[in-house]
């Protein structure tokens, strides 16, 4: 458990760094961020409201450390501030439903991509020069070379607009029910239909990386003596492939998985945007477009924390798979 404790402490540090970055990035920029931030309140807020707003965001007068303390204090109380573009709605209220959609979509998509990539990688390495190795691998690397958003556009164009097989926006059909209702099977079905294309886009674009990584690890592991010995022992191919080779080869993939989670999430956010999915990606872009800095920062923080939690879960899985980490 020492490993997990250490990782947990590390994630705390990472979260702290993210929080701190969030505080310092605007303050390191040239110009006066406060002025820019409140420019759009021009004539709409009186000075008292502005002052209280500034205080909420930690842009108070005084030494930077004092500002930092105010900012941390607000965060500790769960106060992410008020949205500027949706003033005076608390940022948290805006983010929460989007966060859930993002977690569902990206969570399912990345795990699916990872699992498919792993399994295909296992077979690609096992049958070197076979169909997966010589055919699927180059295709997935070409697909992976496209920007996420471009693939998303392309898929929207073909399957959504030309063939009209799938809806091209929203997470569920609002004509069915304006409010989410998970007890309604039609609603669930609608969610699945709406989620399929964006999910496939994320899966297709990120699959290649996992496939190749797993294949290469697997090739490395297959040349290990314990695999050779397992074969010599007369074990079935299945057992050699999964218990001996894949179980070991997956460990570095798992590490790579957690390391690139942040990257994949970033790309997936843009996919959300193209598919008009009501997730964090759209919220972030909206915040950037509307110069809604509190919203922007909160989105970044929550995405970061979600990634950190996902990483920790990957670590737990790692410990389950690798007795040496226990």
């Amino acid at each position: 458990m020492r490993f997990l404790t250490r990782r947990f402490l590390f994630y705390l540090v990472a979260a702290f760094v993210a929080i701190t970055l969030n505080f310092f990035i605007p303050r390191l920029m040239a110009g006066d961020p406060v002025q820019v931030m409140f420019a759009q309140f021009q004539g709409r807020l009186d000075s008292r409201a502005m002052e209280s707003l500034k205080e909420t965001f930690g842009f108070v007068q005084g030494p930077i450390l004092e500002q930092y303390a105010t900012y941390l204090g607000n965060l500790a109380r769960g106060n992410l501030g008020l949205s500027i573009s949706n003033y005076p709605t608390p940022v948290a209220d805006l983010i929460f439903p989007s966060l859930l959609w993002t977690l569902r979509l990206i969570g399912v998509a990345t795990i699916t991509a990872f699992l498919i990539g792993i399994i295909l990688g296992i077979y690609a390495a096992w049958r070197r020069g076979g169909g997966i190795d010589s055919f699927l691998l180059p295709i997935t690397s070409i697909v992976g070379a496209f920007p996420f958003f471009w693939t998303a556009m392309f898929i929207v164009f073909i399957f959504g607009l030309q063939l009209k097989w799938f809806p091209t926006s929203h997470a569920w059909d609002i004509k069915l029910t304006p409010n989410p209702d998970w007890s309604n099977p039609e609603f669930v079905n609608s969610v699945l239909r709406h989620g399929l294309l964006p999910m496939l886009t994320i899966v297709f674009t990120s699959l290649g990386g996992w496939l190749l990584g797993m294949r290469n690890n697997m090739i490395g592991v297959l040349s290990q003596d314990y695999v050779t010995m397992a074969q010599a022992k007369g074990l079935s191919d299945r057992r050699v492939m999964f218990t001996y080779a894949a179980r070991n080869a997956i460990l570095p993939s798992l590490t790579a998985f957690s390391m690139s989670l942040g990257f994949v999430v970033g790309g997936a956010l843009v996919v959300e945007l193209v598919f008009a999915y009501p997730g964090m990606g759209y919220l972030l872009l909206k915040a950037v477009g509307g110069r809604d800095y509190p919203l922007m920062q909160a989105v970044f923080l929550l995405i970061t924390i979600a990634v950190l939690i996902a990483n920790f879960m990957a670590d737990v899985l790692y410990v389950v798979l690798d007795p040496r980490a226990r």
Partner: protein
Amino acid sequence: MLSVMPKPEVKRAVNPDEPLLSVQDLEVEYHTRRGKVRAVDHVSFDIYPNEVFGLAGESGCGKSTIAHAVTRILHPPAYIVGGKIMMQGIDILQMNDDNLRGFRWEHMSIVFQSAMNALNPVITVGAQIMDAIQAHTDMSKKDARARAKELLNTVGIDPERVDSYPHQLSGGMRQRAVIAIALALNPELIIMDEPTTALDVVVQKQIMKEIRQLKDQFGFSILFITHDLSLLVEFSDRIGIMYAGELVEVAPSRQIFTNPQHPYTYKLMNSFPTVSGPRQKLVGIPGSPPDLITPPTGCRFHPRCDVAIAGRCQEVMPRLAKVGDRHYAACHLVDEKVIHG
């Protein structure tokens, strides 16, 4: 179509004078980007029941390749391109994958060089022993576990360590665990590829002693491969000396040590210092082993040989010839009896 070799009821009832394993004209090539490397070239030898046969030679001489070829675990780019490997009259090289799967480990097992690499780090040693047992018998899980514990006990590990992972064991214990796996099905032949290289001499001594005891107890034969000549000579019954992919001399180990016939063997035997006996000047062998992509013509040792016969050794490859009782050497000089008085 070959069937799986029937397992004798009493395995040790074989004729001690019949070879258990007979390697005949074995040829192995590595297909590399630079060209084909003939790593094993027309090698023949026999191993008799309950015998320890040692293979010695410098790194890259092909001794490990032979071990892997005999167990048919050579992977590309290595290919067996010729010869026979007869085990009790059946050619292993003709077996299909299914037959091989049934044959291997039940009749012939292998102990790898590094126990750290030979054990799957993510499953327990017990499970790795049980795997071997359950792949070949229909023993229940419980019985297999009991057998695994018994095997651990046999090789000197506390049976309670059955649920330990490899990293929880010391180097010596790991190597013992690998030996336990090799013993799991009580095979007639165990191939040991540098089984103690990674261990220090004291532990090496313990393990070699135990192997010997086990051999006496179970009556299996060993193909023993090491670069440590002292250990080889001490431990083996007979020894084959390899040079650049060829077997240059085969003889009982005492004889190899005291009366080597091939110039290479002779020089090799005079290359390592000992702790007993007189302290004398040793010279080693000048030069280095050849690049096997472009091996020397004729006798492959001739460029390093100070007694090479001009015009002959460069051109004609000597064949293994009998030079004494169970003693064979591949050298043009052997016939002429000019070496070493």
